[in-house]
């Protein structure tokens, strides 16, 4: 546990028990699949067994003839959309693609692609009906690997896809959806200055967010067109907008209530089941509940991209990096939209490199559409860049932390996309590890130590909150942010701090789309920053109102009332005239002084500071089996101000744990027919407790001036370094650089054999 800097705050920076803890540990919390509705039908998706196939026909007559079957939907039940990219490039949405991902039209583009769905009176009946739906496929050649998908003779997913971002535009279609490029300085001159140049190719596997709770939802569409949806999502306002658009409804007719959520990590931002459940409900006139199996989660929801990359870095003998170049080819899955732009922007972001370029390719292949996963894109490019930097450090003979410190980005450093960095934080994470006692601890045989850093933008944007003072002096707060990482507690802490009352007096809730203002999804490490800003703003309005009410009670001007320690106190000429009034006392007189005491605030929060982290780990390689054991893991992260330090530490530990899985075991494995071989936790190996050491989270607090209490996003950047840190440690342990993830026992054994053969 971090012994963080003594705080001037009473509640911010403390570690109270989480408000959602009791229902979770007693099994009473309501997750997506827990909603029971009288008379609800059960919906089931019929999915393509083929990686790539033309859909010739769908015949549902036998299924519909089965007693208890109430509706079947196919793509014909969803309006088609114009082919156009709407919105910004990274998140540009093309509803022509999205509606085809929800339900295949002309072709099935990956194993698990929805082709039809059925609603029936029971789960078993829905399964029986699903088996009766006859689908005639023409199986087509498929492509899985990103490099193979880019080859000129690759099977095409879209026969008319012309690569965007190349001028003049190519004449021939390909699977390359987009090329993008960022550059500063003069690469040629930069590499000419270098004493050593290192270049290397890297590959990463597609990995799933592996949230424990599968996707689940229920929908009810009334005869008048109004709809209610209950779902496990990271962003219920997004579910509302997407479902309305995909079904041709208006947003005002859709109300979405988020359930408790069993993990998301970016993978529960898109919609999958919700539009289908709503379409089935519309057609059947009954509520429809749908729950994915684990198999469906793996085959049909977004993993993050696998990638093929090349990185080149030049440096002087003193360690000064003079130039850096990188090419990042990302699997987008079956539809465009990998996080390759983020990868390009983050790749060299921790460093002051005057001459740098990143080139990215967004490439479709016969896999499920990639979805966001914790700092999407950044961990992938970090694996390549941070591994290459380790080779540079070895060649020069400089400590890897010192190499990073020498080249660290600081305020004023020009970023590859143009602006100058505005915030401190990176250097402080390096210094925290340089001074960490374990960094100099001796290592044993077959052991190695690896270092890596990470960068993530963090998010801001739109958030809403309300604060209500109850008649007994307790306070109810609501936000539009789904609580994934403990935000109900951090919101309550910030409200208690601002109001000057006890944390136990504040109850914190997540509201549905009809009960609180618009709020962007819980993602991008934005909630504590943006929604926290809204909570503080609403709480400040409450303080102003409480001062007004005290002024009414005392019959003085409001300027003669100040708010301190949860009490209205006389100020100025009134000092000594009145005894302080507590929030509870003012609340008791709410009717007499003007009615309910409530406030709402909505913000479009900007000025979020980026996240920096530096981490080191010690590993031991078993020379016989190739198993890598992580012995020690230390992660220093700039967290701004830790509102609830235990949750901040938890975020860091969680990100590192996922990174360890990504580094050592996790991967999508396809057979020769393009079918996923390991769609379950038995064969897709996420880390289990014995795989993870006690991860030491070192909280570095460089406050963010744009947040009332200095908070920065903390949820994502921690997953950026582990893959490279572990690869670097393995290299130091066995003397062989691994450049492909996962670094599983067979790959380690092969590396050891190569060492022996040298």
């Amino acid at each position, binding site marked *: 546990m971090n012994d963080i800097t003594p705080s001037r705050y009473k509640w911010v920076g403390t570690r109270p028990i989480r408000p959602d803890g009791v229902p979770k540990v007693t099994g009473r919390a309501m997750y997506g699949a827990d909603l029971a509705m009288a008379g609800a039908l059960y919906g089931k998706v019929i999915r393509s067994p083929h990686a790539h196939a033309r859909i010739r026909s769908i015949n549902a007559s036998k299924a519909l003839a089965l007693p208890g079957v109430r509706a079947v939907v196919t793509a014909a039940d969803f309006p088609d959309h114009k082919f156009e990219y*709407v*919105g*910004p*490039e*990274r*998140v*540009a949405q093309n509803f022509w693609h999205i509606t085809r991902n929800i339900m295949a039209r002309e072709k099935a583009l990956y194993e698990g692609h929805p082709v039809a769905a059925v609603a029936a009176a029971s789960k078993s009946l829905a399964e029986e009906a699903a088996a009766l739906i006859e689908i005639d496929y023409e199986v087509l050649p498929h492509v899985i690997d990103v490099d193979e998908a880019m080859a000129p003779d690759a099977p095409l997913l879209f026969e008319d896809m012309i690569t965007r*971002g190349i*001028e003049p535009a190519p004449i021939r279609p390909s699977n390359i959806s987009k090329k*993008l490029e960022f550059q500063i300085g003069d690469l040629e001159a930069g590499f000419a200055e270098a004493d050593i140049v290192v270049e290397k190719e890297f590959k990463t596997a597609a990995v799933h*967010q592996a949230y424990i709770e599968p996707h689940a939802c229920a929908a009810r569409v009334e005869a008048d067109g109004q709809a209610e949806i209950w779902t496990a999502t990271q962003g219920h306002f997004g579910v509302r907008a997407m479902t309305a658009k995909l079904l041709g409804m208006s947003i005002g007719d859709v109300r979405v209530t988020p359930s408790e959520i069993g993990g998301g*990590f*970016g*993978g529960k*931002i898109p919609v999958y089941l919700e539009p289908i459940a709503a379409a089935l409900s519309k057609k059947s006139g009954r509520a429809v509940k749908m729950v994915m199996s684990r198999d469906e989660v793996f085959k049909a929801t977004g993993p993050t991209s696998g990638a093929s990359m090349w990185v080149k870095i030049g440096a002087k003998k003193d360690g000064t990096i003079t130039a850096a170049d990188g090419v990042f080819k990302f699997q987008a899955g079956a539809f465009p939209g990998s*996080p390759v*732009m*983020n990868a390009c*922007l983050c790749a060299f972001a921790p460093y002051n490199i005057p001459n740098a370029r990143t080139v990215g390719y967004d490439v479709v292949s016969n896999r499920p559409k990639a979805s*966001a*996963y*914790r*700092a*999407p894109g950044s961990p992938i490019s970090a694996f390549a860049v941070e591994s290459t930097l380790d080779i540079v450090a070895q060649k020069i003979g400089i400590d890897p932390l010192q190499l990073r410190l020498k080249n660290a980005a600081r*305020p004023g450093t020009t*970023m590859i*996309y*143009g*602006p*100058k*960095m*505005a*915030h401190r934080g990176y250097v402080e994470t390096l210094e925290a590890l340089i001074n960490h006692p374990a960094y100099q601890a001796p290592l044993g045989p077959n052991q190695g130590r690896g270092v890596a850093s990470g960068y*993530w*933008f*963090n*998010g*801001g*944007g*739109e958030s809403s909150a309300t604060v209500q003072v109850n008649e007994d002096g307790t306070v109810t707060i609501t936000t539009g942010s789904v609580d994934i990482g403990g935000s109900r507690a951090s919101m309550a802490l910030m409200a208690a701090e601002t109001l000057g009352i006890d944390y136990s007096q504040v109850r914190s809730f997540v509201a549905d789309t009809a009960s609180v203002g618009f709020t962007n999804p819980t*993602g*991008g*490490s*934005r909630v504590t920053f943006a929604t926290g800003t809204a909570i503080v703003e609403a709480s400040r309005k409450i303080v102003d109102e409480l001062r007004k009410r005290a002024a009414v009670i005392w019959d003085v001007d409001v300027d003669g009332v100040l708010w301190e320690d949860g009490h209205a106190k006389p100020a100025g000429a009134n000092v000594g005239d009145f005894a302080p009034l507590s929030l509870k006392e003012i609340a008791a007189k709410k009717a007499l002084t003007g009615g309910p005491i409530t406030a709402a605030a909505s913000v*479009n*929060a*900007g*000025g*979020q500071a*980026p996240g920096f982290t530096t981490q080191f780990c010690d590993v031991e390689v078993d020379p016989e089996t190739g198993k890598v054991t992580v012995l020690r893991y230390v992660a220093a992260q700039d967290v701004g101000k830790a509102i609830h330090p235990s949750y901040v530490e938890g975020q860091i530990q969680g990100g590192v744990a996922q990174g360890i899985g990504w580094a050592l075991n996790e991967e999508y494995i396809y057979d020769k027919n393009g079918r996923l071989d390991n769609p379950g936790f038995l064969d897709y190996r996420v880390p289990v407790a014995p795989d993870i050491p006690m991860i030491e989270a070192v909280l570095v607090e460089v406050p963010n001036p*744009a947040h009332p209490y200095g908070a920065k*996003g903390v949820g*994502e950047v921690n997953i950026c370094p582990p893959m490279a840190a572990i690869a670097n440690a393995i290299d130091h342990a066995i003397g062989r650089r691994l450049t492909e993830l996962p670094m599983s026992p067979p790959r380690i054994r092969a590396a050891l054999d190569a060492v022996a053969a040298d």
Partner: protein
Amino acid sequence: MPGTTARVVLSSGFSRRYTSGTREFDIAASSLRGVIKALDQLYPGLAEHLEKETTVAIDGELHEIGYLQPLRQGSEVFFIPKLEGG
């Protein structure tokens, strides 16, 4: 405030698509609204693209596009593609 001038920069891709490759502008404006308005006068229709497709870095700090965002004398305003988190 009157007389405030900001240095405004578009990404190369964005400038290629919408401003015939011109990337940098000196614009007298005290808020982001003024910058967007001035650019839209130079390139009619550009405001909608800026509002829908970009986020903005003002002196290195990232912000969503908001009309009321204040600018200081000499502020550097970079319009960059929007980012997405997980």
